[in-house]
């Protein structure tokens, strides 16, 4: 008899499915039932660049302790895809469980001796009850959800409530789904009693947290931030961001007569997308585009124009693994450098790094204020992990007293009053000039916007001193940006530490989990989550106040580290890279292993290791 993993509210289940088989909604139903029982989960789609037929996986980490990063390893595999059977079976932890469709008898060689096999004749059950092939497919998914609910101890009433919510308005679909759910449950109760040692127990660890995708949250944040123009070109994994904006605008920005207080253009390519954003923002609307790495590559020339001509623009980059087409459905943090220095010539751009969907919402709205205030492109760098997975996160917040910061825009009245207007004149000594919207005043305030060099009054010039004067002012403006962008968040270890960790974006939950584990091993580390570029002085001070700083990122070339060294004039010897870039989300296990190994090289064995 193989050993049996026994765990309550702390295990990983993975579903192996075929893309396009309708499994996604059944799996989501399953995942949300844990949340309804007050147990946090972290769920992730692992999917190919494909519409139908290729393998797809869905992973649910059940974690009462609230560890929302990917754990690694699988305790219960729901193997529904014969194509990937061998790989799926191999992935199960020793003592773990394999749930499979036992209609067709498989030879013993297809199993492992050290795992527990739970067979259920799913195909036979659905074929007996349903005749329509599509129904057979869809209800098979619901039947296994019912069986798993029984095996794991999920309250069936919670699943039923979720089914009813899902089909609200299509009420006649509810009873057949209940029936399938109950068929699964009843079979498991009769035939599979006690087959799985993984259990869920009602808890109170979710609080008022919500469950949503970063792309959805970003689209909603753009609505709250006052974006009226969205121009985009479809590209995985950013498409659902533009679609979310469309959905939320339809709900919140449609007049009773059907007229729309927004405009969304699916452009012919990414060049046109960013061109439209720049044209709209030049003309006083808040505008954005959503794209991924290949789109950023295509937008380079226009981004330089917006930087040099000083036109606001908001660019959401939902990063995926590059270079080139790379792995379009896999996650990475690999567009840091191309975004920070986008376009030819000397340029620098503002970057924001949200850690989860809650911050996606917040930073999306903030990005429009920053772009208007600084009159420059602002990048919001999500990644596929945040963008296309539902995360459990703090509820979205909005202060009704908050007003859009439209930046330095001269009104018709100010122009009428005879104020001196030079488009590139640094009146306030912060590097940020004043601008006017086209059509503002009959005789004053017009100027010519161009990508060529100009003087302070926007007149074309190739005079060296005027060019240098302008380029230096752009640097002053970037200096001003340091005090406006979101500050980093520092968390110090209980015991004073000479070693730090810098991380950003979707790495956050894995870092939190890893720091707990490392702390318990006696490896005390201060952490700093960088939330924006340009780096505020706090980031540089953090590095300088530690002997060594681990920089954890999800790319091959240590892009954030490069940026820190370059912009902070940091001695590279102080920084140690921890790099994860295989396209899967970084795990706490990976961070713990990498950090402890290097810690041992630097400091010898950690003080508590022997006690473990």
């Amino acid at each position, binding site marked *: 008899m193989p050993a049996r993993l026994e765990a309550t509210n702390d295990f990983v289940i993975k579903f192996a499915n075929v893309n396009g088989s309708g499994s996604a909604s059944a799996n989501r139903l399953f995942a949300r039932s844990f949340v309804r029982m007050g147990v946090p989960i972290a769920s992730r789609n692992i999917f190919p660049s494909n519409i139908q037929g290729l393998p797809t996986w869905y992973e649910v980490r059940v974690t009462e302790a609230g560890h929302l990063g990917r754990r690694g390893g699988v305790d219960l595999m729901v193997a529904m895809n014969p194509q990937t059977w061998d790989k799926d079976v191999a992935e199960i932890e020793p003592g773990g469980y394999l749930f499979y469709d036992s209609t067709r008898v498989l030879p013993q060689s297809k199993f492992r001796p050290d795992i527990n096999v739970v067979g259920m004749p799913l195909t036979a059950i659905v074929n007996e009850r349903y005749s329509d092939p599509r129904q057979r497919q869809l209800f098979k998914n619901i039947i296994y959800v019912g069986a798993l609910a029984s095996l794991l101890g999920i309250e069936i009433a919670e699943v039923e409530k979720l089914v009813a919510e899902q089909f609200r308005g299509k009420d006649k679909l509810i009873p057949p789904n209940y029936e399938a759910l109950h068929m699964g449950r009843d079979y498991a109760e009769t035939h599979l009693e006690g087959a799985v040692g993984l259990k869920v127990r009602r808890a109170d660890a979710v609080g*008022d*947290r*919500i*469950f*949503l995708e970063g792309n959805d949250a970003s689209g*909603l944040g753009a*609505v*709250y931030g*006052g974006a*009226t123009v969205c*121009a985009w070109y479809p590209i995985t994994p950013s498409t659902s961001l533009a679609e979310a904006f469309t959905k939320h605008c339809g709900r*919140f*920005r449609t007049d009773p007569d059907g*007229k*729309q*207080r*927004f*405009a969304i*253009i699916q*452009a*012919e390519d990414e*060049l*046109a*997308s960013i*061109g*439209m*954003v*720049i*044209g*709209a*923002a*030049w*003309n*006083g*609307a808040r*505008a954005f585009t959503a794209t991924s790495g290949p789109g950023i590559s295509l937008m380079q*020339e*226009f981004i330089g*124009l917006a930087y040099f001509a000083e036109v606001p623009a908001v660019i959401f980059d939902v990063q995926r693994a590059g270079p080139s087409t790379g792995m379009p459905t896999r996650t990475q943090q690999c567009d840091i450098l191309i975004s920070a220095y986008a376009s030819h010539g000397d340029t620098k751009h503002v970057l924001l790094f949200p850690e989860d969907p809650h911050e996606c919402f917040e930073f999306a709205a903030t990005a429009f204020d920053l772009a208007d205030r600084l009159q420059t492109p602002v990048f919001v760098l999500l990644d596929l992990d945040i963008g296309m997975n539902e995360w459990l996160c703090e*509820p*979205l*917040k*909005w202060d009704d007293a908050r*007003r*859009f910061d439209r930046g330095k825009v001269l009104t018709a009245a100010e122009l009428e009053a005879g104020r001196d207007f030079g488009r590139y004149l640094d009146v306030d000594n912060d590097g940020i000039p004043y601008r006017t919207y*086209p*059509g*503002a*005043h*009959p*005789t004053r305030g*017009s*100027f*010519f*916007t*161009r*990508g*060529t060099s100009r003087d302070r009054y926007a*007149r*074309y010039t190739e005079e060296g001193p005027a060019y240098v004067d302008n380029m230096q002012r752009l640097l002053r403006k970037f200096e001003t940006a340091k005090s406006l962008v979101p500050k980093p968040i520092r968390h110090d270890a209980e015991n004073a530490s000479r070693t730090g960790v810098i991380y950003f974006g979707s790495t956050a939950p894995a870092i939190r989990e890893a720091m707990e584990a490392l702390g318990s091993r006696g490896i005390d580390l201060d952490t700093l989550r960088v939330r924006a570029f340009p780096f505020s002085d706090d980031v540089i001070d953090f590095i300088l106040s530690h002997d060594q700083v681990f920089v954890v990122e999800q790319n091959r070339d240590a892009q954030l580290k490069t940026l820190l060294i370059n912009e902070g004039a940091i001695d590279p010897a102080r920084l140690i890279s921890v790099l994860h870039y295989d396209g899967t989300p970084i795990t706490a296990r990976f961070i713990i292993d990498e950090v402890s190994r290097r810690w041992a090289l630097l400091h010898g064995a950690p003080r508590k290791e022997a006690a473990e």
Partner: protein
Amino acid sequence: MTYLTKPKLHHPKLPQNELGFTRRDYEGAVSTLCAGCGHDSISGAIIQACFELSLPPHRVAKLSGIGCSSKTPTYFLGASHGFNSVHGRMPSVLTGANLANRELIYMGVSGDGDSASIGLGQFAHCIRRGVNMVYIVENNGVYGLTKGQFSATADKGSKSKKGVGNQDSPIDMVSMAVLLGATFVARSFSGDKEQLVPLIKAAIEHRGAAFIDCISPCVAFNNHPDSTKSYDYVRAHNEAVNYLDVIEGRDEITLDQAPGTVELVRQHDGSYLKLRKLAAGYDPTSKIAAMNYLQERHEAGEIVTGLLYLDREAEDMHDRLGTVPTPLNALGEAELCPGSAALAKVNASLR
């Protein structure tokens, strides 16, 4: 020479339009193009058209790409905001600007390199979208700023100044515009102000994508005997199908001329265009007839000019999108931000 400012003084008896502006109020900086360049004549025609229509100059936004033609917005409408963007990408910038504020008049100025080569895609798509604009291509068949390379509109067999023959088929922007769904399509010649000025006026008045292909000889690189875009060649082969008068006001109008030579075309908004017809039987409201005629005369080596196609039921991008009448750039928090109560409901739906 942009560093030479034009004297502000002008003759006290210069004619004024309804707004009390003279033609000088529609001018820009002194042109830096070559003496005799067709583009300067087009700038002059734009100035004349805006003056005659009594447009408030600040209600016009002028946008361009890169090239000789794209420099010209500096030389007209000095009181308007201008945007000299990147090569071949004026259409997207103009589209975005139009999305932000549907109330301004958008004038896109481009060249044959800018629109037929690097920017062919953006040209096509902004026409398709029905952006309300005047899109003028100042077409000389040659790259001027880089000294005389062929552009994609150069006719097959025509020769460069250095005597090299062009082997590739030309792109006919007018045929493309008709095919792509432009609702006002015209071709004219920079040397024929009588035809060009009313066409620009009509294009401004038109609500929808208005495209004018304007042959504009390059005196420096493409005005020699083997060119098909020289002053002499265009004058010799210009086959004008009609001349236009723009009738302002929306009142019912009747014709007193003999039918067949003059035609009144009533537009969707109730205004009229008066066409003096030179080619008997040419019907500019028929897309198929226009396309046939253009191909036929092109085969015969002629350059068809005039108002070539007009869709009287034109709609624009905002009609299709269903945007509110208020310009999007004038909406504030109250119209745009749903507030915390709505957000609480969103949160509740995500638990």
